[in-house]
């Protein structure tokens, strides 16, 4: 075709015709989705873990004639946290965003209250665990809905053969895969734990307890501190370090325990403890069942000797390290009502069970009444290995996040900067006395509180 055949007028006419034809022939079907809900959820560690949310989004979209767009954003390189920070600054982005535990406090003023959603869920399923409530409720209002997908407990994953052989503790008899505690369960204390750590260390299978600056480290140390009643601040954020005997007691304990850990735990990240277990070098770690699941694939001879049990109890009770995800709705979002409906939909028992099943039992719902999903009984080998992964009533444990009950804006700084493991490291590795380390801790907290 020559250039002369295609004049400007012809081209414009043809273009207008195409647009008009496209517009006029578009079916004005009744019920075509007119709303698009944009959600950013945490990209699950478990490969198939996002599948449940995809399935639920599709169901919700079909029922309510809504387009639900899901983005799964990884926390590798803190991308999800950066997304939250960017959206908060620009006041634009997704309608629903997965928020890490402390982000709710940081963005509370920009999050839509979800008291109505939580009210209906609580009426149906009972109260959520206290740590979830502490994190998601600010200034008297629920600012996010505690999520199931991605939420984890960090109980002890124990090599029962090594524990029996070297420490003389039969963890399966102590915490059987039944809704009852074994006859020796009340001896599962931090003192017993220390003796077992020493025995396993001597046998060449030290406990793989990270003491670095990542969440696995901060979480288990947080539960240890709480079980001694050792809090570094009160509810208002005032340091409670001077004259705090439980704090000195737990510091002394942690320093003694650290002598029986691998000498490089101060640099361990969240994967190091998993590697220690999977490689067969460690007799115990505190972790969700992801380490066991990887062992099942890569080192089946290790996986079939693993058994999950609650964390030990201290003088003030048993506390379970808990790391939840939450779903928040931006107050500047366009579809707040639909977003609330969607969050309520994915928080129902059936939806939570689907998420937990899809993640091979990894995901923990926030409601105690949902700690009886079948998958935790049937997963194996050995069958029942993760029965005690959810916090069950007979554990008599309380879910806990490190540095609670400090105000969120202070607790988040203490948590991210891992003040609890650092204060131990200053003594165990740095050679400070406990008093020097605690003075440093008090100065750090005081500085964090300034410039509010």
């Amino acid at each position, binding site marked *: 075709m020559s250039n002369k055949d295609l004049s400007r007028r012809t081209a414009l006419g043809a273009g207008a015709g195409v647009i008009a034809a496209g517009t006029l022939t578009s079916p004005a079907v009744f019920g075509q989705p007119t709303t698009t809900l944009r959600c950013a959820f945490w990209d699950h560690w478990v490969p198939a873990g996002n599948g449940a949310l995809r399935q639920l989004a599709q169901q919700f979209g079909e029922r309510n004639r809504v387009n639900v767009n899901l983005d799964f954003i990884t926390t590798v390189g803190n991308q999800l946290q950066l997304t939250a920070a960017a959206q908060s600054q620009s006041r634009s982005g997704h309608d629903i965003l997965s928020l890490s535990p402390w982000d709710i406090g940081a963005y509370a003023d920009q999050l839509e209250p979800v008291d109505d959603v939580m009210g209906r869920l609580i009426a149906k399923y009972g109260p959520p665990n206290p740590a979830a409530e502490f994190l998601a409720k600010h200034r008297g209002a629920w600012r996010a809905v505690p999520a199931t997908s991605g939420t984890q407990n960090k109980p002890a994953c124990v090599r029962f053969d090594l524990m029996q052989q070297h420490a003389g503790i039969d963890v399966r008899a102590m915490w059987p895969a039944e809704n009852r505690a074994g006859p020796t369960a009340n001896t599962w204390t931090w003192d017993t734990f220390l003796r077992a750590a020493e025995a396993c260390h001597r046998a060449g299978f030290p406990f793989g307890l990270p003491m670095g600056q990542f969440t696995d480290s901060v979480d288990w140390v947080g539960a240890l501190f709480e079980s001694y009643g050792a809090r570094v601040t009160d509810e208002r954020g005032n340091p409670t370090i001077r004259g705090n005997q439980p704090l000195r007691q737990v510091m002394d304990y942690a320093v003694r325990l650290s002598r029986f850990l691998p000498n490089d735990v101060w640099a361990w990240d969240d994967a190091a403890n998993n590697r220690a277990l999977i490689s067969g070098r460690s007799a115990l770690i505190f972790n969700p069942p992801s380490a066991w699941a990887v062992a099942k694939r890569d080192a089946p001879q290790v996986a079939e000797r693993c058994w999950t049990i609650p964390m030990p109890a201290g003088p003030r009770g048993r506390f379970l390290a808990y790391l939840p995800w939450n779903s928040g709705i931006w107050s500047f979002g366009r579809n707040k009502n639909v977003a609330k409906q969607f969050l309520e939909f994915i928080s129902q028992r059936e939806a939570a069970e689907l998420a937990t099943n899809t993640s091979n039992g990894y995901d923990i719902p926030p409601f105690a009444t949902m700690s009886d999903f079948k998958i935790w009984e049937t997963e194996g080998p050995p069958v029942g290995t993760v029965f005690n992964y959810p916090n069950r009533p007979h554990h008599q444990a309380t879910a806990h996040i490190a540095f609670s009950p400090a105000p969120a804006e202070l607790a988040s700084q203490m948590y991210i900067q891992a003040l609890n493991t*650092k204060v131990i490291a200053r003594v165990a590795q740095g050679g400070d006395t406990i008093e020097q380390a605690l003075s440093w801790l008090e100065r750090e907290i005081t500085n964090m509180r300034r410039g509010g």
Partner: protein
Amino acid sequence: MALDATEGRLAVARARKPGNTLQRFARRRSTIAFLMTLPLIAVIGGLVAWPALYAMYLSTLNRRMTAFIGLENFRILLDSETFRMVIWQSCFFAITAVLLKALIGFWLAHMLHHIPTKGQRKWRGMLLVPWVIPPALSTLGWWWMFEPSYSSINFLLNVFGVPSVPWLGEPWWARISVIIVNVWYGAPFFMIMYLAALKSVPEQLYEAAAIDGATSWQRLRFVTLPMMRNIISITVLFSLIVTFANYDIVRVLTNGGPRDLTHVFASYAFQVGVLSGNIPRGAAVSLFMFPLLAVIAYFVLRGINQRNKEEA
């Protein structure tokens, strides 16, 4: 010539339409030059000037970003033992790494310069590999080698009967590890810059020095180094700024640990600002070295300008 002719035509055009000032303005060379540089100015303004000014503004706000508190964030930081340690570590890290990079780069450039041209290209390419790999990726490779429990370097040491080194678990070893990776990554940049500078030194100067009986040290001291002074100043300045702002190596290798003893400004700013939700204080951390580096940059660049004028 062509430009004069253009000017002439423009002058005629101007004479024909004396009243149209807008057209005259648009046809001015300076206007056209400005319009052509406008995209670059927009990029620099949007991606450099605006974020820098915004960071300065942020650093003067309180944690909730609701009130102006002046320089209070900087005062709080200086009161913090951890931050004072970060200042010391950043300086130690940047100065040590830049010195090592400059020395190794200079040595490599000399070695390459004396290789016959035929084989030089091959070596040059191989030695540049660390610099072209994205640092986050290569640092991950180093991390695998230093990894606390299963370090491949320790495995090799053990083969020769040397005990394992806690590369990332012990503060001084962790600092050394971070510096090693930074030097490994950055030395090729110095090498290629110095090699280019060496190639531009006139051969006659060396011949004259040889006739005068200069030793190889004297040739280096009185011929090579003075001729390379500008390029050394620029590369050191550039590298110092980049190394002070280094983030990825620390983040991937140690995450600032153990006990914050490997944090540098950028990694600490990210931890305080983004992860801990205290953006104004994080901005203050990241801006802390700005005045000092600006002063250093001013003096270094002024020195280069003066030398250029003298040489001209």
